[in-house]
């Protein structure tokens, strides 16, 4: 009798996990659409090929895991759109010239966009009961989403994005989490 109850409970637990996997797969569909749209907007598919699949896998795992990880997905994607848009604006502008020297503004656009995304992430993390977890999960999603745009200028674009994210969010999040610990 007790064995039957255990079997039934295990069945229910598996059903719960299956349900979460199904919901996570449904949850990444809009992100798949964003990735494809990014390819069309960018008119180059290399960043989509490199950043798209990891973004899908990471968001699926975070949504399946749930709690702070799952809740960080949407703000992460929203924050990641900022450097993506900044990059598109920079590409439309072309380059900046100072005297006889001209520079591409793509990498600075990634740094600035990343910093703005970092500030958004920090605001989200501030409201969370587990700021570091939310910031970490949201940061990975934001970095991968932003990389859809910044990867087209190569490694420096992605590095600029990461530096911007860290500069924009780390101080606020670290202060916040230290304040929580002291309290």
């Amino acid at each position, binding site marked *: 009798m007790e064995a039957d109850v255990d079997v039934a409970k295990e069945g229910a637990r598996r059903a*719960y996990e299956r349900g979460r996997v199904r919901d996570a797969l449904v949850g990444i569909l809009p992100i798949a659409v964003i990735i494809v749209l990014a390819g069309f907007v960018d008119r180059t598919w290399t960043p989509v090929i490199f950043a798209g699949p990891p973004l899908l896998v990471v968001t699926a795992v975070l949504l399946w895991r749930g709690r702070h990880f799952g809740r960080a997905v949407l703000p992460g994607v929203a924050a990641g759109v900022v450097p993506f848009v900044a990059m598109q604006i920079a590409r439309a502008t072309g380059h900046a010239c100072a005297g006889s020297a001209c520079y591409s503004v793509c990498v600075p656009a990634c740094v600035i966009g990343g910093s703005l995304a970092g500030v958004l992430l920090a605001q989200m993390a501030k409201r969370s009961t587990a700021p570091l977890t939310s910031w970490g999960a949201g940061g990975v999603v934001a970095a991968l989403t932003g990389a859809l745009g910044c990867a087209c200028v190569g490694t420096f674009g992605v590095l600029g994005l990461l530096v911007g994210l860290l500069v924009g969010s780390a101080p606020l999040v670290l202060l916040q989490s230290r304040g929580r610990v002291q309290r």
Partner: protein
Amino acid sequence: MNSTARAQLNEHMRRLADGDRSAFEPVYASLWAPVRAFCSRALTGLDGEDAAQQALLKMFSRASSFDPSGDALTWALSFAAWECRTVRRRRVRARIGDVDANGAVDARVDGNPTPEAAVIEAELEAAALEVLGALSEADRATLMTTMCDEVPSDVGAATFRKRRERAMTRLREAWRKVYGS
């Protein structure tokens, strides 16, 4: 389940919907008994237990879509009610299938009638007795004699035929009055 336990269950269910696996045990422990009791009351025997298990499987599979402002017990019982309805429909369909295939409610392979067939037979028997009870003593005696295929010695064959026709007419009327056409 008292209001404190119910509030606790709601809190655990909210956590489970959010992805907190540690809330699974308390939710399962709180819901198993009421869902099983509900299904056992709605269905009979092993069907009740099976339906309760199926209902909980479906409920846990949809746990992420639990409305945090809703009541977990009501939500779980709605799955149980739906499952019981499905089992009943399946039973009815199986019963109709038996009637279609054999022209009558079938018996089991081992010769014993199925519970459903037994219930239907009992209902028919009760209906017949109810209708016969509405007839006069003379009509009942005439019909019994007819069923035994006998002709009473104290009346002539022609008289008995007329009595039998009248008794049958009244039986049909009584049946129609109670059960319609």
